[in-house]
């Protein structure tokens, strides 16, 4: 089981990084006056916190020790399109790590962990990454200023 626990700790690092990044980005949006972006991204931070909670609970149940310290590097993004792209990049890396972890659970016949991870992957794909991709598409279609005006 320790291999599964190590992998879950690897995923936890992604979730903790996401919480930090979304919290920082959402507050930055609020500071700039883009309240709609603030609401959406602070809601994403809450979702990621929910995912982290699931991972921590599962690691403890498997008698492992949750690693609350590890993080991935935060991006150096200082305008809205760069921040949205960085968030999308993060979701994609997180999804890749989740898929590898799901395969590992299957090998170890840990089907309950696998099921939990599929739930997280579904949120990542259908909610977070999809929404971010839509925003980047809208910026292309509307132009940045019009997009931002709609996000106030």
């Amino acid at each position, binding site marked *: 089981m320790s291999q599964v626990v190590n992998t879950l700790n690897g995923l936890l690092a992604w979730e903790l990084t996401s919480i930090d990044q979304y919290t920082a980005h959402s507050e930055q949006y609020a500071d700039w006056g883009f309240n709609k972006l603030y609401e959406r991204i602070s809601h994403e931070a809450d979702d990621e916190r929910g995912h982290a909670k699931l991972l921590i609970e599962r690691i403890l149940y498997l008698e492992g020790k949750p690693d609350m310290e590890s993080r991935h590097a935060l991006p150096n993004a200082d305008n809205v399109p760069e921040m949205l792209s960085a968030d999308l990049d993060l979701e994609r890396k997180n999804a890749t790590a989740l898929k590898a972890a799901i395969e590992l659970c299957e090998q170890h016949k840990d089907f309950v962990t696998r099921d939990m991870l599929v739930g997280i992957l579904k949120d990542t794909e259908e909610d977070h990454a999809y929404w971010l991709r*839509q925003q980047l*598409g809208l910026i292309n*279609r509307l132009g940045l200023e019009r997009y931002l005006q*709609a996000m106030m």
Partner: protein
Amino acid sequence: MRGNSTVLAALNKILTRKLTTINQFFLHARMHKNWGFEQLNNKVYKASIDEMKHADKIIERILLLDGLPNLQELGKLYIGEEPGEMLKLDDKLQTEDINHIRQAIAVCESEHDFVSRKMLAEILEQQEEHQDWLDTQCSLIDTIGLENYLQQQL
């Protein structure tokens, strides 16, 4: 009640047009949604459902007239690649639909099928309303520019 074969043929032709419009509007609505234009999605999705209700009325009328509703045929879909083009193509399809319904109404009148005529006239009224909406959208795009228009459709 045995219906007049000319009327039945006219009703089936309108049914084919309805089935075509349902599909075009439905796909366009979901394309708008995929790009994040939620308002266009709502409006066009509802128009697709309205077309389905029209198809339902025509099917029931054909059956009442002892005819066979033809659900096999589907006309050509005009599918656009971006929101402005899609609205124009919906307008084009709807305009053609209106012309066909007018012709079918004339057939019903000459064959003295006044109840089918009344049903088609009610459908025509809704079609004109929707076409009016499409015209307005195309005109807004010309007046305020596509980007400003789309900004209002999030």
